[in-house]
């Protein structure tokens, strides 16, 4: 890697009592890279995300973003640095409209949000961003629907949209296509492919078609450790990965 | 040395008051910790216990009978309340529970006032402990000593129940994660009702025991609720250990507050609470809620 990594994880660990959910993971993600994290259930993938975003404190190791140490920062500080995340279980504002879901995320940089007597309509930037993101994720016709009334697939799109609306440098996607039909999965994949390369992607996925379409490189996690890393082709043919997925490991 | 004797006598007072708080707060902390229910009417169970004790002693002239029966009666009331009023509210969150149990406070207090009248009714201690005892030079009512010994015995019994029996394990599991416990096949509804009734019975027991010390009056439930809540805040939700340690601390704080800061005695327990909460926001032995 010639340029310094955008995200650098060094010997990251997290124990829950006797359970080593993440056990000495080291990773480096380059800017503009698209990395997939795969591995069987319980491999520590979501825990890894929780550690990066500050939802969990690590038991050991360091995380550097853009060269700065971010280990132990609270979630809102991590988000402000430019790391955004979508969740495996849809995590929206159900009673609020799609537009408001996106606008709230876009307004999170705080400018204008302490305004006690003004009007939301006057803050153009977040409103415009909301429309822009809605179009990007294919939800423009549904802008005024309450998020709770969207179909499951649409909610997953909005889930990614909310994470996008904060204009992140690094986007963490936790199983974006979970529970989706093949058509919905295709739509989501094409949408993700169409994202600007300035947004570095880190995706947890189980669907290998999605991984092969999107990922530049793949990291395989197993029992909280990095098993293999490489391009999709390399990883696909690695005998250790085969074993892990077929349960002999 | 009169100063030390005074200190000793006061400490014993604080201890006996702490026992009352302990019995009251155990039920409260288990109910909070497991059912996630804010039961403000817990003080009412205390009051009902005192008045049930008053009536039973009046009728049978037997303190020990009252001690055994009154808590059971209060426990039954607890079952009715849990089944009738609280069960529909589990999914609805703390707001509705606060409101409903707040309404129950008004209801019970006025009901008691209606039936027994608003005046203070004194309750005599049992003949066995009606006198006083001289301990290392300090004269102490023997009833207080009984309360302390009884309280410590109850603490041990509760500890054994919670930590060493299967029922206790189920309760602990429910406090830790009710959903998961239900998923393991435990009839969580019945455990909830049981824990609630048990907590109510303990509160009633505390009320009976408190009778000879504090007398019976309708506002007594609301009055003792606050120190009991502070004990739970200080000790941590759902923790038996927290209840014990918390009630010892608060019991002593309130008693010595009266001695050392007569002009601001009521402030003492809040200062102690604020100090503890500053360092450990969830209490000494508590955990953040899910």
């Amino acid at each position: 890697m010639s340029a310094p990594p955008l995200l650098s994880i060094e010997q990251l660990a997290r124990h829950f009592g006797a359970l080593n959910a993440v056990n000495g993971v080291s990773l480096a993600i380059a800017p503009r890279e698209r990395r997939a994290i795969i591995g069987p259930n319980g491999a520590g993938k979501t825990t890894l995300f929780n550690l990066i975003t500050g939802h969990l404190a690590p038991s050991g190791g360091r995380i550097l973003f853009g060269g700065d140490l971010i280990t132990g920062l609270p979630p809102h500080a991590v988000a402000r640095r430019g790391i955004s995340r979508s969740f495996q279980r849809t995590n929206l504002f159900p009673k609020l409209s799609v537009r408001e879901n996106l606008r709230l995320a876009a307004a999170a940089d705080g400018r204008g949000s302490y305004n006690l007597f003004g009007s939301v309509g006057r803050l153009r930037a977040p409103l415009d961003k909301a429309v822009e993101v809605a179009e990007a994720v294919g939800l423009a016709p549904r802008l005024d629907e309450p998020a709770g009334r969207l179909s499951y697939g649409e909610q997953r799109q909005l889930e990614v949209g909310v994470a996008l609306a904060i204009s992140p440098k690094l986007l963490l996607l936790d199983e974006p296509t979970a529970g989706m039909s093949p058509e919905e999965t295709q739509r989501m994949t094409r949408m993700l492919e169409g994202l600007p390369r300035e947004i570095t992607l880190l995706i947890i996925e189980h669907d290998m078609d999605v991984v092969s379409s999107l990922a530049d490189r793949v990291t395989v996690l197993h029992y909280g450790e990095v098993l293999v890393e490489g391009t999709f082709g390399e990883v696909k043919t690695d005998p250790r990965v085969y074993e892990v997925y077929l349960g002999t490991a | 040395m009169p100063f030390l004797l005074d200190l000793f006598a006061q400490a014993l007072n604080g201890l006996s008051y702490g026992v009352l708080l302990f019995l009251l707060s155990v039920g409260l902390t288990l109910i909070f910790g497991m059912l996630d229910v804010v039961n403000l009417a817990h003080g009412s169970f205390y009051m009902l216990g005192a008045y049930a004790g008053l009536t039973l002693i009046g009728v049978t002239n037997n303190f020990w009978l009252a001690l055994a029966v009154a808590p059971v009666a209060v426990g039954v009331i607890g079952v009715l309340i849990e089944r009738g009023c609280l069960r529909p509210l589990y999914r609805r969150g703390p707001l509705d529970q606060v409101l409903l149990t707040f309404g129950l406070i008004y209801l019970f207090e006025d009901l008691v006032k209606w039936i027994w009248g608003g005046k203070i009714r004194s309750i005599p201690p049992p003949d066995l402990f009606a006198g006083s005892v001289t301990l290392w030079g300090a004269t102490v009512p023997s009833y207080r000593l009984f309360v302390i010994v009884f309280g410590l015995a109850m603490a041990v019994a509760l500890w054994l129940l919670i930590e060493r029996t299967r029922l206790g394990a189920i309760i602990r599991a429910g406090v830790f994660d009710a959903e998961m416990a239900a998923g393991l096949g435990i009839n969580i509804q019945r455990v909830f009702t049981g824990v609630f009734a048990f907590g109510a019975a303990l509160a009633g027991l505390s009320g009976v025991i408190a009778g000879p010390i504090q007398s019976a009056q309708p506002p007594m439930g609301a009055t003792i609720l606050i120190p009991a809540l502070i004990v739970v805040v200080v000790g941590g939700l759902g923790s038996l250990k927290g209840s014990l340690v918390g009630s010892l601390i608060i019991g002593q704080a309130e008693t010595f507050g009266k001695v050392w800061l007569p002009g601001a005695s009521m402030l003492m327990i809040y200062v102690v609470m604020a100090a503890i909460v500053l360092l450990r926001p969830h209490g000494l032995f508590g955990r953040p809620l899910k």
Partner: protein
Amino acid sequence: MIPRLILAAALVAALAAFPLFAGNYPVKLLQEILIWGIFAMSLDLLMGYAGMVSFGHSAFFGVGGYVAALALLKSPGPVSALLLPAAAAALAALVIGFFSIRVSGVYFIMLTLAFSQMFYAVTFQAAWLGAEDGIVGVPRPVALGLDTGRPLQFHLYLVAVVTLAALALWRIVRSPFGHVLRGIHENEPRMEAVGYAVNRYKLLAFVIAGTVAGLAGSLYTQQVGSITPDAFLWTTSGEALLMVIIGGTGTLGGAVLGAAAFILLQSMVSSYTERWMLILGLTFVLLVLFAPGGIVGALRGRIGIRS
């Protein structure tokens, strides 16, 4: 459709003109409703919009009331009547909020309750604050160009202050800040995850609510002419909570309706029977079990509006 502004103005005018049509007792009741209404409204900002259930709101009501009493006895002007009580309540809210907002749910409820009781404990025993009897003989101020010592002028002054406070709360709820609060109420963890320093917003909401509550307490002292430690009792907080719930949380206006319902009910029932506490308690229980949306919720259900 008659624009809401005209309706609102008509309402305010009717409230202001009320003493011309009604006797002393109804006017006093109306004033109580306005004072408790704004108190409950400030609590609704906290509960219905920020999702913070506080059982210690009486702390700020009481602080406002006591500061107003002390200040008005020295100098009966607008600073004593409005500015100082509000500022004192804001400070109290800042301190209590700092302690309490680090936790949530049941812990938050209990901490806020305990803090308000602490104020009760202090004022109950403080001789310089009148101890159990509180402070009496508090004069009404000369403010907003009115000599509120005269009944009609006091009424106008009260309606004006309450209207301004209600207007301020109404604007705040619609502002960008209000939208953030709503987001926090809907999904606090996600708000954190997208970059909001949630605790800061909650603290600000707590301080705003406390400030308005302090204003209400001050108005109470001015209306009654005295203040006692009972203002700090947890039952005072509980009754405000009740008013918000009766009216419907998250509606602002519902809080005033709830206050009216509570005060009128209490007034009616206590004139018929000594057992009004019993009836009130029973009413709460039945209300919670059978009418969870409150008055406004029931009305909305009838008309089929969603907001």
